């Protein structure tokens, strides 16, 4: 197992490198990073030339890429193109914020989706099952930004009507969030709506997978064997059926976890959350390659780790899978 994990990590290094190269190349294709600076009236040609040379922007893209790569070990991710602020502290902050949002949303989604999936499968074609199916199709079809806005409207109206603020509709924290427990309560009240927004689509997806997987398993011979032993229906469902049905679902959730770590761009934008997605969009708009590359590297590593975790979990849940 350890050997396998190590081998997988080593194999992912070229994958991450290749993805950084591709993205670096494509970002530099999007145009001149200095275009905005050039349009600014109070910046001289000498200043522009200085930035271009010091950053190596006059060099071919491949050379720029190698320069960027070499700078990582000693210089972290360096500074922004337009000022001397360092990228890494900002990235750490937004990563931390996105992690809070995504971990909470994923864990809740998994719990809700597995429950819905199992119950729907056990009561196939019941009213409950049809309701869940309908909900799932709504979840899939609903534009995220629309749902987020509707949530904001609802909670703003509740506040206006009753003067009771249940959840905040924007930002990560109040201006003075306090410390300790008060801070986390405040954080939760800010994150609740973004979490709900993210959950809608995750629950819709995962519960469909769980239902399908569970349906396959509950009609299998070994579940009948478990019943023939005289086990309680609950034990049959949880121990004999669910454990098998979880195998494909775990893979899907672990993979999607890596992907959403890049940031839920729409959700973070609507709620004004200082997270990975908003960070990426901001610097993409500014055509600053350095924060984008730093963001990409973090995201790519997250995806690789999530893949690895998915595979290891797979082996843990299914004894037929062996890693040696």
């Amino acid at each position, binding site marked *: 197992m350890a050997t396998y994990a190590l081998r997988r990590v080593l194999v992912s290094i070229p994958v991450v490198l290749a993805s950084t190269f591709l993205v670096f190349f494509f970002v530099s294709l999007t145009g001149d990073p200095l275009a905005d600076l050039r349009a600014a009236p109070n910046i001289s040609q000498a200043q522009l030339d200085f930035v271009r040379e010091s950053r190596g922007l006059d060099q071919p893209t491949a050379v720029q890429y190698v320069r960027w790569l070499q700078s990582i070990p000693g210089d972290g991710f360096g500074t922004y193109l337009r000022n001397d602020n360092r990228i890494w502290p900002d990235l750490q902050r937004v990563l931390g914020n996105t992690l809070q949002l995504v971990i909470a949303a994923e864990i809740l989604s998994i719990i809700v989706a597995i429950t819905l999936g199992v119950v729907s499968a056990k009561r196939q074609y019941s009213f409950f099952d049809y309701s869940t199916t309908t909900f799932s199709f709504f979840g899939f079809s609903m534009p995220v930004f629309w749902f987020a806005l509707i949530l904001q409207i609802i909670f703003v109206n509740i506040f206006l009507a009753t003067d009771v603020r249940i959840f905040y509709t924007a930002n990560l924290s109040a201006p003075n969030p306090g410390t300790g427990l008060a801070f986390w309560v405040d954080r939760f009240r800010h994150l609740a709506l973004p979490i709900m927004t993210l959950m809608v689509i995750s629950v819709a997806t995962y519960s469909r997978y769980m239902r399908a997987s569970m349906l396959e398993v509950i009609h299998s011979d070994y579940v*009948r*064997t478990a019943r*023939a*032993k*005289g*086990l309680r229906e609950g*034990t049959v469902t949880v121990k004999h059926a669910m*454990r098998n049905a979880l195998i494909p679902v775990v893979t899907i959730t672990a993979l999607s976890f890596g992907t959403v770590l890049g940031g839920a761009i729409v959700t973070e934008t609507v709620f004004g959350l200082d997270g990975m997605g908003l960070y990426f969009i901001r610097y993409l708009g500014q055509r600053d390659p350095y924060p984008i590359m730093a963001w990409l590297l973090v995201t790519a590593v997250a995806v690789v780790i999530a893949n690895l975790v998915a595979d290891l979990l797979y082996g843990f849940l299914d004894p037929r899978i062996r890693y040696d």
Partner: protein
Amino acid sequence: MTEPILSIRDLVTEFATPDGTVHAVDHVSYDVYPGETLGVVGESGSGKSVTVMSVLGLIPQPPGKISNGEILFEGRDLLRLSNAQLRKVRGKDIGMVFQDPMTSLNPVLKVGHQIAEAMQVHADVPDDKARLRTIELLELVGVPNAEARYDQYPHEYSGGMRQRGMIAMAIANEPKLLIADEPTTALDVTIQAQVLEVLSKAKEETNAATILITHDLGLIAEMADRVVVMYGGRVVETGDVDTIFHEPRHPYTLGLISSLPRLDQDLERLVPIEGQPPSLINLPSGCAFHPRCHLGQGRERCRTESPPLVEVGTAHRSACHFTDEMGREIALIESEMGTAIEGVDQ
């Protein structure tokens, strides 16, 4: 005679399908006596498995439905028990070995654990005791190196080994009735013999009455004391194993026996049963076997009147309108086959 341990009375099990209702079990009655081995034979779809699944309450409902009859086990009607009461019978008083050992064990749980679980669900056995007892059981059913095998997963077992594991699981609580549903069908011929030996041994050990479901008449001849022949969801003939093989009183039974390949006699040819097994949605009118029956020859009575199961000898019953013509029929088949039906069971 002693009281039967299991008595199935007038059982009707149906399945609702988009094409119509499947009459899988159609007014079936038979008894199982303590200590005996009852062989149930029939083609695929004759209702032999569905009958025993109904006994254990393992029919998925819906689409299945038990719409008539009673299943008396030690005097209690299993169909009237609550789920909790029925659960106490399953695996404890009635053990079951399923057809396909490749899919009947849970792939993600250790085999030993699955056997121990069967014990622990019915009695308060501590883990270490359950483990020891499981290892004993595995040794009894001939799993070599049982200690190490306890901690292996089903995919590390061969097909024959898995079926041994299933048998160990079925007898873990020393059941009074053991149901083996085509226990050897999915196995290699060489392994079949070994598994049958294990099954006999398990039966000796527990002295359980056994229902052996199979379409293999050779197996019936070797293992069974009494035989129930099923066709189209109905019982068509029952009797002692010798009687059934020597003096079959139903043309379907005769058809089964004469289509059996023989190693010990120089047969000119086998006599197949013409036609297809009946559709359980639209059973033929009258006697379900009449479209394929050599004896009936499309007689009016066969087409219109369903024959009741009547006494034709000592503990021998047959559901045929023309049982008295069976002697001539046997002679006819014998002349066609160029050999005697006698001695099939040797």
